[in-house]
């Protein structure tokens, strides 16, 4: 953990009456910085916040939006809840899985993509939907998926 991160964490702690209250903001911060929270991070936070590691692990594992394993640079979350499922999210997921040649929870060898199936993304009006990092992609079909993935690939390879 760099000194800069530690400083930011200490600033976060300052906003709360109890150190422990800063736990969620700190976890979010760490995830934002490298895409996931490592076991060493848990240990470090435990020291800084005076909260037992087990409790931090418990909290971190409770929230699906907090990841304890590395994810791709582009983390794809495909909604598989009722409305998306009715409109073919399973097919979208399978298509993505085949296209990227990875299973759920895995990362492509180049580290660019990872996919997971998630519960409702609150985009039922434009189902099926998926979220790539903080960006929404709605009214999906296989053609649109191709377009999105290919454009990312182009951008990454080109850049």
């Amino acid at each position: 953990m760099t000194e800069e991160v530690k400083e930011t964490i200490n600033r976060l702690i300052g906003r709360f009456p109890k150190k422990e209250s800063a736990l969620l903001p700190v976890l979010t911060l760490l995830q934002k910085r490298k895409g996931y929270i490592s076991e060493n991070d848990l240990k470090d936070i435990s020291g800084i916040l005076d909260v037992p590691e087990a409790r931090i692990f418990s909290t971190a594992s409770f929230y699906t939006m907090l990841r304890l394993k590395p994810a791709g640079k582009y983390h794809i979350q495909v909604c598989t809840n009722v409305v998306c499922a009715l409109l073919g999210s399973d097919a979208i997921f399978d298509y993505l899985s085949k296209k990227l040649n990875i299973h759920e929870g895995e990362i492509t060898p180049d580290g660019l993509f990872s996919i997971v199936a998630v519960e409702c993304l609150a985009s039922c009006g434009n189902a099926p939907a998926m979220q790539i990092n903080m960006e929404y992609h709605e009214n999906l079909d296989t053609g649109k998926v191709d377009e999105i993935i290919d454009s990312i690939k182009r951008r990454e390879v080109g850049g």
Partner: protein
Amino acid sequence: MISLTINEKEVTLDKPVTVLEAAKQAGIKIPTLCHHDLLKPWSGCRLCVVEVERMPRLQTACTLMAADGMVIKTESEAISNVRRGILEFLLINHPLDCPYCDKAGECELQDLVNKYGPTVGRYKEEKRKVPESHKDQIIARNTERCVMCTRCVRMCNDVQGASAISIIGRGNHSRMEPFSSESFDCEYCGNCLTVCPVGAILSRLYIHSFRPWQVDKEVGTICSYCGVGCSLVVQVRDDSIKRVIPKLGFGLNKGLLCSRGRFGYEYVNSPDRLKTPLVRKNGKLEESTWSEALSIIADKLTEIKGTSGGSAIAGIASPRCSNEDNYVLQKFMRVTCGSNNIDSLSRTGFAAAQKYFEDLLGQGITANIIDGIKNSEVVLVIGGDPTAVNPILGLSIREAARRGASIIVLGHAKGLEKFKTVQVVPPLFKEAEVLEALLVELFRAKGVRAELPFIDKEMRELSEKAAEKMDLPGFDELMKALLNSASTSIVLGMDLIQRTNGHRSLFGVAGITYLLEARLYLLSERPNEQGLIDAGCVPDMLPGGRPMNIPDFKSKFEAAWNGPIPDDDGLTLFEIIEGIKNRNIKALYVMGENPVFNLPGGPFLKDIFGNLDLLVVQDIFLTETAEIADVVLPALGWAEKSGTYTNLERRIQLQKQAVKTSRGMEDWRILSEISGRMGQKMGYLETDDIMREMAKVSPLYADLTYDEIGKGDCLWPYHGKPLRGEMNEVPPVVDAEKDYKADFYLAPEKLLFHSGTLSRKSPALMKICPEPTLKMSAASAGKLGLKEGDRVQFSTTAGSSEAPVSIDESIKDNRVFLSNNFQGSGVMDLLSFSIDEVTKAFGIEGCEVEIKKHGIKA
């Protein structure tokens, strides 16, 4: 006064309690699952719901406070429906593998479903699957059976304070897991086992070996490991110990246990136990018969007594043996052998400190109730880690911390790292100076207490001599906390006593205790250190702590024992060793002790014990000392014999026989047999006879009976008459100014998972902690270029050894620590020592050690 109606029964309460508790007082049982008497109410399982008149919905009895005028129903059709519903939900994921599960028969879920539950489940989907974890060697975890009551997690967090397990995941996927997720990385107290209502957490020590209903005997007894003396229950089937469980709500531990007490009991069934007497013939120990062995001892002792006098005989008592055993030993030494040379290895710590404090402040000054620590405002921890030496006492300190007390650690205490408020690290081996400085500051702020003028005088002299205030990080904070504290507990470990200037530290502690009227606790590693003192196994005192040099006491005992007691002051432990060296002592009788391993300078002791004409060792294992003895006698171990034990708070408790064995004889019976053969019949048939005699002759045990002791609250001063302090002046301080400039110093460490040499025979404890490590601070490891787990060789002037490195963040100085438990690698063999002039304990400070990485030539 609160009165309410539960199930049409009038209930009146003295103090506000929950409805659950009120019902319990009225003899009404409300079903619970997540509730446990050792834990705070949680209202997670909802099974304890009750109907309360004029309240719209069902209420959870475990969290609802009873109020005046409440009308409550604990059973009705509506309530039963709810309970059945809850249980049906719990059974959705519960595997129903009862025929295979070890908990069946004592499973709370099984009992509840039997009473309320649905006979058929309606759930058609797949059950949650979590494979049973086989990673841990001690704790069997089967999370599929878990009902998410979180009792284990709350126990681990809120009571034990280890915070090693948690519920991870969410909803259907949530499960209990140790943070390390493989084996447990915790204190192995096993208290999670106590509270688990189902078969999710079990002990591998007894898994698949018996059914709860096959237990044919339950014996309430006390633990054999440390000076706390926790109550526990031994479950027996066919004369073999099946398991050890706590006795909820009973004794001083109220159902909590530590790793040693819960998992360490298997040593009694070790195949290494001695089975027959051994006699040395042609230089080799050979199996013999009782009659031969006892006759050899009796003849030899008679011969030595005749030719060289009784003072050529010495005895070493055992803090692992009962009061009765020790009482008989000292009587055997004094009357049968005619020698006052009786001491024990407690001289090296507990007994030395206890004598110093009692001489100064009066008998019973260390007799304080462990439970009282919880209510202190300040707990001052000095010279040891209470959570390792006396784990259950350590829990009281953690509880005090939770209740807002300041926990001040002078030195280091790993188990209190998360709980300490202030840590003051004295300069290396200068604890005595810090304590003295503290005393001076307190005296300057508080002034004379005018109860014991000689102590006031000494403090005034010290404060006149003392220079500037000590400049040490945390010192001011420590001072402030102590000055503002209305109730202070001082917990003193052995580290400071085992110093050449130990008495100087002890005066500091005594002075602080006196000034603040603090409660003083002496950590005690062995179960009966206090008891052997009270039984008279000290050279200068008769049973009950009565000084030998007061003729009145002596003549009273002579009349009771029907024989003369020698006039001379007996020798203390190290004087006995000196006597053996000079060939003045010709016979040594060792009962349940292992001086060759447990004292510093083992090889030297082994050597000089060769001078003896007779070395008798009475033990349950062939210890390092027994190996060089002339006669070895097999004794009975814990759970095989009965007797009383006195713990560090001076509570007398009963240890009861649970199983029968033909392996050995009770220690007292062996002694009484030998005594008979030497012409002094003792006439004891059972331990009761000894207790009756002790109750008659010892002023401390006056009128005590087993019935009274068995109730568990036999507390100081019983019916006895304590004596006031012996001294009227403080012994002068003998302390040479020394510099400690070496890179590293070796010091002994007390492990949580081991106790003396007994625990090496416990398979469970050896699995948890299989080998010694050399503990050091991160800074020391950095200086040596070492990391966790690196094997190192280390040597002192006394010897050398090797072990892996373990980094301990709580250590703040350049000492490295090694335990004294494992065969062939005890720290004591590597330490050189000198004797404290006042307390007669050994001092082992300043032992320089050279450390190098394994395989690297210097």
